[in-house]
């Protein structure tokens, strides 16, 4: 059995099933477009030009920024000439970062639910179980089929967002500000670890439920801690530095490792076959 050939076939087939279904790929493009590109760009553009102190709605953010400036948590803020500089810098470099985790979480959930629970729903999983593909190969193929598009989507959004952020910030700061170390760690370490964890969690859920909808709804629970992270970042309460990010990635990987053990333990060929009868 040529494992690489089988894994490659599984990945190509699953990715094709996503590109063939507009219901699947459209939300996966719209979410990154809105939260990764349109919304951050609009906010950065607005905050770079408006008289911020006259706007009631951003006062909480300005207060957080003042606190951060005085406490020295972000040393660069103190040397900036205006509130606009500070707020643009803070938004671009810190506040939008957790939003970028929503993209791999969302994409991984949709892709994995489609790949496992979707195969059950369409009665094609049994055909796969009747092939001599080992369970190990099957799971590797399925995990990669979700991980690759999820990472590509996150990284492409990151590149577009980074370009826009630099275009908007260059006239103010006179230098390319994006990305900083935090962003690099986030995109290259935390995003892959987070994607992997979400995929494995969804594989576990998908193997136990009968349909795509059920799998997707249960998988959606994972977005909740992310919302808390965004709120924490916005209020300045939870300012995550590089070490913290490295640790978050490590914890996510550790959880992934545990989940992987559970996936292989709970999903033998016989168990999977029985769960879909």
């Amino acid at each position, binding site marked *: *059995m*040529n494992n690489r050939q089988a894994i*490659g076939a599984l990945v190509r087939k699953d990715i094709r*099933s996503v590109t063939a279904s507009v219901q699947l790929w459209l939300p996966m493009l719209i979410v990154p477009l809105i939260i990764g590109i349109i919304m951050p760009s609009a906010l950065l553009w607005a905050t770079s030009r408006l008289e911020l102190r006259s706007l009631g709605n951003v006062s909480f953010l300005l207060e957080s920024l003042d606190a951060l400036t005085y406490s020295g948590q972000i040393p660069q803020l103190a040397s900036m000439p205006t509130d606009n500089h500070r707020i643009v810098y803070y938004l671009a470099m810190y506040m939008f970062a957790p939003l970028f985790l929503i993209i791999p979480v969302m994409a991984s959930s949709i892709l994995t639910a489609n790949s496992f629970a979707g195969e059950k729903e369409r009665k*094609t999983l*049994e*055909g796969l179980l*009747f*092939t*001599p593909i080992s369970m190990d190969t099957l799971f590797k193929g399925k995990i990669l089929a979700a991980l690759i598009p999820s990472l590509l989507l996150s990284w492409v959004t990151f590149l577009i967002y980074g370009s826009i952020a630099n275009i908007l910030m260059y006239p103010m700061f006179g230098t390319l500000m994006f990305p900083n170390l935090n962003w690099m760690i986030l995109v290259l370490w935390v995003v892959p670890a987070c994607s992997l964890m979400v995929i494995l969690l969804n594989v576990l859920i998908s193997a136990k439920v009968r349909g795509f909808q059920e799998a997707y709804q249960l998988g959606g629970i994972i977005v909740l801690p992310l919302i808390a992270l965004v709120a924490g970042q916005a209020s300045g309460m939870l300012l995550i530095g590089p070490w913290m990010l490295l640790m978050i990635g490590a914890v996510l990987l550790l959880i992934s490792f545990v989940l992987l053990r559970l996936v292989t333990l709970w999903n033998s060929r016989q168990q999977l076959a029985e769960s879909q009868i």
Partner: protein
Amino acid sequence: MYMIEVRNISKQFNVHQALNDVSFTVEQGSVTGLIGPNGSGKTTLIRIMNGVLGASGGQVTINELDAARETEKVLAMCGTLTEHSGLYENMSGRDNLIFFADAFGLARAKERIEELVTLFELQDYQHRKVGTYSTGMKKRLGLARVLLHRPSILFLDEPTNGLDPDGIQMVLRIIRQLNKEEKMTILVSSHVLSQLSAVCDHYIFMEKGHIVEKGTEQEIVSRYLSTPKLEVEADMPNGWHSVTDYTPETISAYKATFQLTSREDIPLLLRQLMEHGQVYQARITGSDLESIYFAIREAHHHE
């Protein structure tokens, strides 16, 4: 050598006992019909024989390999067409075959796909999405899919289900061809015995998770033929009565039926009839496999 050995297989799904102490053997190169009504456990048995489903008790060996423990080796040797043929509807027929060829790790996949596309006459539809295929076309593509890796054992679960008469004939022709030319051992399940009697040399009758009868057609028939009923077509100038020691049950001008007590009565009766008239034809009624099958089913239905 037995290609398939099923020993005391039982399977329980929660409270439902799907299979109960099922045992049989299948010889290499035979075509065995697994016959039983819907829900009698045929599909569950096929899944267990492949090692895809675990049994609650018992053991299956395929070519001396334990199906539950050496599942991947067993699957590499078997081709199984299930009721849902496992095809991807959003992909073309050819792309389905390419995917499964890669999944099997097939070398020289292109040649094998061409060969099967030609064998199943799929040339004109191979680039169309499977979702647009008719039931017969899907069945043909499904068969091509399970034959990709040249299995030595073929499990076909209700392969004629939903097919028109032409489609049924096509499936039967392919079964015969694979058995003869490639010496494939074939186990084919159906709830319609008459459709399979043209290709099977062995039968297993199932009812509510039990095997109720098994053997070759002759073996089964002889077991149920202790008191044969003979229908005779003859010209008897002096009438049917008092020419033999046997009293006919029904009579018409040229036909009569006799209920005999044993097979040994048949030559005696025929000799006596021939002494008094011209015998054109004699046949045992109710002795065909289908009548026996229904009699067995009827008997178990009342149990």
